[in-house]
C-alpha cells in the first residue's frame, strides 16, 4: 500500500518552519492581536516620521524657538506667530505668486493634457511612439529641468529667445524671460506646463479609454454629431479623471519649490517668490523656526482643507 502525499500550502510550510517556542506563544494570540503585530512596525514608522514631526511643528509654532540659537531660552508666545504670518504683507505677496502659478499651470496643463489625450486616443499610426515622446519631460528630474531651462531662457545663448526671435522678429537679446518682472512668472508657468502636461494627459487618457465603446455606438445610432458626443459622453465620463489630475497637480504645485528655486530663486525681486520659497527662507536662512512652523501649519491646513472640499466635489461628480 503506497502513501499518497498531499502538497502543502505556503501557510502550512510557514507553520512547520516556525520554532515550537514561538509557535506556542503565537497560538495564544487572537487574530486581531496578530494583525496588530504585523502592522505595528508601519504604524510606529509613520508615527516617527509623519505624526511626531507634525505634532512637534505645532508645538514649536507657539514658541519663539530659533534653531540657530541652541542656548537661548524658549518662550511660549501664544498665537503671536500665527498673527505675524497672517498680517505679513510678504507672506500675502508670496501667496499671490503661488495662486498665479497654480491657476495658470492647472488651467494650461488640464486643457493641453486633455487635448493631447484625446488626440492620442484616436489611435493614429505610430501613436504609441508619440505617446512615449510626449511622456519624456515628466520622466526628468525637476532639478535637471530647472537647470536646462535656465540655459534655454538665456537671452544671449538660449534657444527660447532665438525661437521667439524667429517667430516674432523680437531681437533675442532684448528680453529676458527669467530676469524680467513681467515675464518671469510666465517663464515658470511655461516650464511647469511643459513638464507636467504629459502627466495630466496620462490620467485623462486612462479616463478616455475607460469609456465603453457601445455608448458611442448607441450615440451614432441616435445620429448624435461628433461634437455632441464629445460634450455629452466624452467630457462627462472623463470628468472624474480630469478632476483627479487637477487635484494631484494642485497639491503638487501648491508646494512647488525645486524648479522655481533653480529657475528664478524667487526673483527678480520677489516676483516669483512662491510660498514654499518664503517658508524655506524663514526656516533655514533667517532661522525663525517658531514663525516658520506657524507658516507651515497654515499652509498645511490650507492645502488639507482645500483638498478635502475638492475630494467631496469629486465624489459628487463620480456618483452622478
Amino acid at each position: 500500500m503506497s502513501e499518497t502525499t498531499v502538497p502543502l500550502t505556503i501557510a502550512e510550510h510557514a507553520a512547520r518552519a516556525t520554532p515550537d517556542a514561538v509557535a506556542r506563544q503565537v497560538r495564544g494570540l487572537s487574530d486581531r492581536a496578530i494583525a496588530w503585530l504585523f502592522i505595528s512596525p508601519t504604524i510606529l514608522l509613520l508615527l516617527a516620521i509623519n505624526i511626531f514631526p507634525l505634532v512637534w511643528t505645532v508645538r514649536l509654532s507657539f514658541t519663539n524657538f530659533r534653531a540657530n540659537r541652541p542656548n537661548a531660552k524658549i518662550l511660549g508666545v501664544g498665537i503671536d506667530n500665527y498673527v505675524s504670518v497672517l498680517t505679513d504683507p510678504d507672506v500675502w505677496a508670496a501667496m499671490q505668486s503661488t495662486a498665479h502659478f497654480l491657476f495658470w499651470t492647472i488651467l494650461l496643463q488640464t486643457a493641453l493634457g486633455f487635448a493631447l489625450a484625446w488626440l492620442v486616443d484616436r489611435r493614429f499610426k505610430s501613436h504609441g511612439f508619440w505617446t512615449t515622446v510626449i511622456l519624456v519631460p515628466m520622466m526628468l528630474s525637476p532639478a535637471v529641468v530647472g537647470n536646462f531651462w535656465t540655459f534655454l531662457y538665456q537671452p544671449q545663448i538660449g534657444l527660447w529667445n532665438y525661437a521667439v526671435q524667429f517667430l516674432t522678429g523680437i531681437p533675442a537679446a532684448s528680453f529676458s524671460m527669467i530676469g524680467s518682472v513681467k515675464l518671469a512668472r510666465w517663464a515658470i508657468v511655461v516650464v511647469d506646463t511643459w513638464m507636467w502636461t504629459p502627466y495630466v494627459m496620462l490620467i485623462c487618457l486612462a479616463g478616455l479609454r475607460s469609456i465603453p465603446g457601445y455608448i458611442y455606438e448607441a450615440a451614432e445610432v441616435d445620429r448624435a454629431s461628433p461634437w455632441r458626443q464629445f460634450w455629452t459622453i466624452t467630457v462627462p465620463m472623463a470628468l472624474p479623471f480630469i478632476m483627479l489630475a487637477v487635484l494631484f497637480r494642485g497639491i503638487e504645485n501648491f508646494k512647488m519649490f525645486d524648479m522655481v528655486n533653480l529657475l528664478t530663486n524667487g526673483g527678480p525681486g520677489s516676483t516669483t517668490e512662491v510660498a514654499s520659497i518664503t517658508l524655506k527662507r524663514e526656516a533655514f536662512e533667517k532661522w525663525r523656526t517658531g514663525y516658520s512652523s506657524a507658516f507651515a501649519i497654515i499652509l498645511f491646513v490650507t492645502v488639507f482643507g482645500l483638498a478635502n472640499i475638492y475630494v467631496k466635489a469629486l465624489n459628487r461628480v463620480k456618483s452622478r
Partner: protein
Amino acid sequence: MDKLVARIAAVAAAVMTLSLAPAAPAQTKQLTLCWAAWDPANALVELSKDFTAKTGIAMKFEFVPWTSFADRFLNELNSKGKLCDLLIGDSQWIGGSAENGHYLKLNDFFDKNGISMKDFMPATVLGYSEWPKNTPNYYALPAMGDAVGWTYRKDWFSRPAIRKEFKEKHKRDLAPPKTLDELKEIAQFFQGRVIDGKTVYGAYLYTERGSEGITMGVTNALYNYGFAYENPKKPYEMRGFVNSPDAVQGLEFYKALYDCCTAPGLTNAYMQEGLDAFKSGQVAMQMNWFAFFPGLYKDPNVGGEKIGFFANPAGPKGRFTQLGGQGISVVSYSNHRDEALQYIKWFAQPEAQKRWWALGGYSCHKAVLNDPGFAKSAPFAQDFLTSMGMVKDFWAEPSYAQLLLAMQKRVHDFVVAGKGTAKEALDALVADWEKVFKEDGKI
C-alpha cells in the same frame, strides 16, 4: 593535483604573511577643515601638505560651493556637528558663532603661543576675529583677506581706435576709473559696442538674490555715497544713516549702472557668473572678489597682458569697498581640538603665511603685506593693499542672516525688479532691521 595544492598553499601562506606583517606607520590623527569650494581652497590644500609633513597629522577637506556654503555649515554648527574641526567661516558669522558657542575663544591660546593680533592687518582682525567688535575677544585667526575689486580688459582699453573715440567723446584718456561716475561713463561707452565681431557690455555687477550677492555688490556704491549702518555715536540707530539722502543716491547710482551697462539676463548673478562673463569676453569691466584675481590673471584667454585690475573707485563721500574674506576658527564641538589648535599655530607663522600668498591665498599677516616687495609681487597686489585699507563690512550680529536677507530683498526689488523708489527701499530696509533688533532686544 599536487601542483594545484602547492599553489594554493603558497598563496595562503603569502596572504597570512602579509596580514601578520607589521603595518606601515599610519597617520592616525586627522583633521577636517571646512571651507568654500573655490580657487583659494586649492591653494590651502597645497599649503596644508607642509603641515602634514611637519606634524604627521593628516588633513581632510570639506569644500562646499558658495551657493550652499552658508546653509551647509551653519546647519552643521547649529546641530553641534562634529564634521569640521576647523572652519573658515564668513566674517558675518562671527557674532552668532561666538555667542552660541560654536567657535572656541582663542585669546588664551594666542597668549600662550605668542600669536599676536598686532601682527595682522587691523581691518582683518576687526572683520574676521573680534566679537563684540572693537574688543580684544578673538574667535578666529585672520586667514583669507579679501575685498571687492574690479578687473578690466586692458587690451580693449589700449586699442588706439577705442582710445581715440573715448577721448573725443569724454575729453580724457581711457584709463581705469578713479570715481564711480567715471566707471559709469566707461561702462556706457563699452555697452553694446562690437569688438572683434562680438557685442560686448560695459560692466558686470553682482545681482544675486538668494544668498548675499546683491548686498555685496550694492554696498560698494552705497558706502561711497555716504551710507552708514548706524549712528556712530548711538549703536543701532539707523534712521537717517541707512536711508539718508546720500544713501538713496548711492542706491540710485547702482540701479542706473545696472540698467545702463550690464549684459542682458544677468539678473541673479554672483561670483561665478561674473567670472564666466569676463572670461567669455562679454564685459569690459567686472566686479568681483580679489580671491579670484590670481586665477583670472592666469587665464589663457583673458589673463596676462589682457587683464588689468583696479580698486573700487571713489564716490562723492569717500572711497570704500566691501570686505570679504574669512578667519579660521576651531569648532568647539570638535573631538580634535588640540590638533586643530596646532594647525592654527602653524598657520599663524610668517613662513606659512608667505607661502600661502605665494600659492594664491591672500595672507592678512603684516610680515607678508608690509614686505617691500609685496606691492609688486602680483599685478593686483597694490590694489589689494589699497582695498584692505578702505574696507567696510556688513553687520556681524548673531541675527546677520535676517539682516542680510532683508537687504537682499529690498535692494533686489528696487535694482532688478524696479519696484518702488530707492527711498522706499531703504525706508523699508530700516523698518526690517529695526524689527530684527527689537526681537533681539537690542533696541
